[in-house]
C-alpha cells in the first residue's frame, strides 16, 4: 500500500524512493550490518577489557600499598598478619601498624578516590565543562569554612576531630543548597550553576580568611594541612563507615543515571525532547555530587585533581559513554589516589608529603600534557 503512495508522488526521485524503501526493510540478514554489529560489540568488549584492566591495576596497587611503610614488614608477612587478625589470632607486634594504620588508610584512599572521581565525571558531564571538578559548586569553600570554624573556635580542642568532620560536612552542603534555592529564581543551566558556585565560593572564602587572620599559628598550620588534603587525617577504621556508605550510595546512583547523562550531553533542548528534564536532572546531580564529595572531603581535607583529571584520562581509553566512563573512573580514581599516597609516604622519607600535594604534582603535568596533545574536536 505505502509503496504505491511513494511511487505515486511525482515530486520524489527514484533514488530517494529506493533509499527510503530500503530504510524501511528488515536488515537483520545484511552482511554489512553484521559487520557493523561485530565492530560495535568488539568496541564494547574493549571497554570491558579496560575496566577489567583497571580493576587488576587497583588490586595490584592496593596489595602493594599495604606493604609499603617506614617499618620494614615483609610482603607476605603483611598478608599473614591480616589473615591472623581476621581469624582472631593476633600475634604479631606489627598488627596495629598493618591493620589499624595502613589498611584503613588504603581503604579510605580507595573510597575517596572513587568518590571524587565519579563526582568529577558527573560534574563535567552535567555542566558540559571539561574544567569542572567536585569543588566547582563551592563544596570546597563550604567544607573549608566548617573545618576552619572547628579549628579556630576551639571545637576540635574541646570535642575532638569528629567535630571537624561534622562541621565540614554540614557546611559543605550549604553551597549546594543555595544553588538549589537560586535555581528557583533563575534556572539551573550550566552557566547559572557555575556562576552561583563562584559567588558562593567567594563569600565563604572571605569569612574563612577572616577567621584565619585571627587564628594562632598552630591552628593555621592545621588548617593549611587540612586544606591540602591528606589520608593521614583518617583516624583508623572509625572514619570509614560513613565515607564508605555515602560513596557507595553515590556510585550506585551514578551508574543508574549514567544513561541519562548521555542524553543530557546532547543538549538541554534535545534532552528534554527525549524525555529528560534537563534542569531537574542537573540539580539532582549537583546534590548527589555535593553530598558525596562532602562526605569524602570532611575526612580527608581538600584533595584536588583526582576529580578533575581522572575523567579525562579514562575518557582517552574508554570514550565519553557515561555508562562505562562512570565505573571506570571510580576504579581509576581509586588507584590514582593509592599511588599518590604511597609516593607521598616514600619519596622524601623520613618526612612525608600529604596526598593532596602529590596529586597536584601528578595532576598538573598530566593536565598540561592532555591540553597540548588533544585537538579541540576531541573534547
Amino acid at each position, binding site marked *: 500500500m505505502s509503496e504505491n503512495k511513494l511511487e505515486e508522488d511525482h515530486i520524489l526521485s527514484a533514488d530517494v524512493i529506493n533509499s527510503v524503501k530500503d530504510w524501511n526493510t528488515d536488515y537483520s540478514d545484511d552482511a554489512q550490518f553484521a559487520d557493523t554489529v561485530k565492530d560495535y560489540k568488539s568496541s564494547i568488549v574493549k571497554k570491558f577489557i579496560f575496566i577489567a584492566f583497571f580493576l587488576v591495576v587497583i588490586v595490584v596497587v592496593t596489595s602493594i600499598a599495604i606493604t609499603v*611503610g*617506614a*617499618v*620494614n614488614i615483609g610482603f607476605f608477612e603483611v598478608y599473614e598478619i591480616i589473615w591472623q587478625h581476621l581469624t582472631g589470632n593476633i600475634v604479631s*607486634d*606489627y*598488627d*596495629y*601498624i598493618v591493620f*589499624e*594504620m595502613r589498611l584503613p588508610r588504603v581503604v579510605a584512599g580507595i573510597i575517596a578516590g572513587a568518590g571524587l572521581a565519579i563526582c568529577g565525571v558527573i560534574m563535567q558531564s552535567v555542566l558540559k565543562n571539561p574544567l569542572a571538578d567536585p569543588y566547582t559548586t563551592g563544596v570546597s569553600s563550604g567544607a573549608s569554612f566548617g573545618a576552619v570554624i572547628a579549628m579556630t573556635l576551639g571545637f*576540635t*580542642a*574541646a*570535642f*575532638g*576531630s*569528629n567535630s571537624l*568532620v*561534622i562541621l565540614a*560536612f*554540614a557546611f559543605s*552542603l550549604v553551597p*549546594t*543548597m543555595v544553588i*538549589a*534555592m537560586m*535555581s*528557583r529564581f533563575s*534556572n539551573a543551566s550550566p552557566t547559572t550553576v557555575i556562576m552561583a558556585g563562584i559567588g558562593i565560593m567567594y563569600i565563604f572564602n572571605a569569612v574563612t580568611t577572616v577567621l584565619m587572620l585571627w*587564628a*594562632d*599559628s*598552630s591552628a593555621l*598550620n*592545621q588548617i593549611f*594541612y587540612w586544606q591540602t588534603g*591528606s589520608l*593521614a*587525617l*583518617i*583516624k*583508623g577504621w*572509625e572514619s570509614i*563507615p*560513613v565515607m564508605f556508605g*555515602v560513596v557507595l550510595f553515590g556510585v550506585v546512583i551514578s551508574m543508574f543515571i549514567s544513561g541519562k547523562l548521555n542524553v543530557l550531553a546532547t543538549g538541554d533542548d534535545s534532552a528534554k525532547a527525549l524525555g529528560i528534564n534537563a*534542569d*531537574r536532572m542537573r*540539580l*539532582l546531580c549537583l*546534590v548527589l555530587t*555535593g*553530598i558525596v564529595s562532602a*562526605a569524602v572531603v570532611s575526612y580527608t581535607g581538600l584533595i584536588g585533581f583526582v576529580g578533575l583529571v581522572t575523567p579525562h584520562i579514562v575518557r582517552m581509553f574508554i570514550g565519553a559513554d557515561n555508562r562505562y566512563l562512570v565505573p571506570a573512573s571510580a576504579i581509576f580514581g581509586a588507584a590514582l589516589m593509592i599511588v599518590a599516597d604511597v609516593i*607521598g609516604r616514600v619519596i622524601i622519607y*623520613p*618526612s*612525608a608529603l*600529604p596526598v593532596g600535594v602529590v596529586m597536584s604534582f601528578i595532576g598538573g603535568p598530566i593536565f598540561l600534557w592532555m591540553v597540548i596533545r588533544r585537538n579541540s574536536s576531541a573534547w
Partner: protein
Amino acid sequence: MDQKSVIIVAAVIIAVAIVAVGFMAFNNNGGSGSGEDDGRTYTINTELRVFGNANNDKYLNSADVTFIKNIVDGKSAWNSAENPLADVNADGKITSKDYEMVQDYIDGKTGTMYYVDWNKQRSSVDYPLTNVLENGTYGIHSMFSTGLDWLIILGLYDNVTYMSNGDIGPDDLDLELYPNADKLKVFKDIRLTSDHYETFINEKIKITMGDKRWYDDTFLKAVEDNFGKYNLNVIKLPMNRTVDGITWEDTMITLGVMFNLQNKSAGYIKYIEKVDAAIETAIASADVGTKTYIMPYTAPGYDLNPMYVDAHGSGPVLMADVYTIEKLPLTSAVSVVTADGFDAVEAETIIKYNPNALIISSFGYASSKSMTKEQYVDHFQDIADIFRDMGYTGLIYGIAFENCTMAGSAFLLTLAHSIWDDAFDEDEAWALMYEYYHNFTNYKGSLSDLKDSKFAVWENLWY
C-alpha cells in the same frame, strides 16, 4: 525551576545531613583522643609535676615517702586540693600503695611514672626513661634547636638522633655548642601526623619532646593505641614555650625525675634558685620600683615592622618570654590578651605605649653558626633605628635567643643591672651568667669572651 523540586532537594540534603551527623556522633568516642582514660584535670602548685611529689617541692625523695606515710599512719590529714600528687595511683585515697610506688621510683625500679601533662591530665611515661633507650639502641627526637639544651644538662646529648626543622635547622647549628649537630636527622615537616608514626618506629626513636602544637591528634592516637607493642614515650611538657603557665623550668625539673637523673638536674635547680635569690635580695635592698617593658619579637627572616609582641595571651602555647622577664620588677606596657600570646603590632603603636625598656627577644641567632655577633648587632641596630627614628628615648636591648629558653634565666641579672645599675651588682651578674654557660652548655670561652659574645645582652643607648 519548580518549587517542588527545590523542596525535594532541600529535604534530601537535610535528611542526609542528619543521618550522617547522627552516625558520626554515635561513633564519636568523645574527647580529643590524646588524653588519658580519666578525663579528669589536675591543678597543681609545684614545678615537679610527677605523681609522688607529695610535698610539692622540687625533688622526689624520702621526704615525699614520709609525707605520705604520715597520712597513712593518721599523723596528718590529706588535703587533696593542696597535695593532689600524693595520690600516686589516683585511686582517690592515700594508702601504702602510694608510698611504695614513690619508694620504687627512688630505688630506680622499672615501672611507670605518672605526671600532670600540658592538658592538665594524668599522663604516663616509662620509668626510668633512660632504660627505654636500651643503652643506645633507641634514640630521642627533640624539636628545634632549643630542644637540645635539656639533653646537654641531663647528659643525654649523645642520645638525640632526630630533630624537627625549625627556623634553625641542624645544618645551621653552631657545632661548638652543639657538637655533631650536622649528623642529626631531620623531619622537614614540623607537624607530626600519623604519616610519621611508622618512621619513628623504623628510626628507633622511643622518646620525643617538643611543642604541643606540633603533635597532631592522629600521631598521638597511634602512639597511644600501639603503646604496648612499641613504647614511644611522648613527653607532654613544653620544652621552651610555656603552656598554661608550665615553664621550661618546670619541665626541666620534671624531666630530671623522669629520667632518674636528679643528680644532673639538681645542679640546674640550685642555679635557678641562686638567680631567684639574687633577684630577691637586690629588690629588697634597694628601692627599684617597677618599670615597664615591651618585648618585640624577631627572628631571621621576620619583618621588621610590624613586629610580634610577646603579649599576655590566654591560649595553650604562649606567654613564653614574659614568664622569664617578669621575674624582674617589670610589667608589660602592652597588656594585650591574645590567643596566641603574639600580636602583630606596628612600631608606632609600640612607641605610643612608651615603655621604659624595649627588650627585643629573638630566636635562632645564638645557636646559629651562620650568624656572627656583628651581623646580629647590625640586625638589632636596624630594629632599634626604627624606634629611635620615631623618637623613642627609652632603653633598648637585644637578646640573641628566646629568653624563655634555658639561657633565659642566665642573662636576667645582666639585664637587670643595665636597668637598675645600683641595685644589681655587675660582677655578680656576669658571674652568674658565666656559670650557666660554663656548667650547662658546651660553651668554651672565658668570662671576658662571654661579655663580648652574642649571648650578652646588647644594650643600645643611641639616641
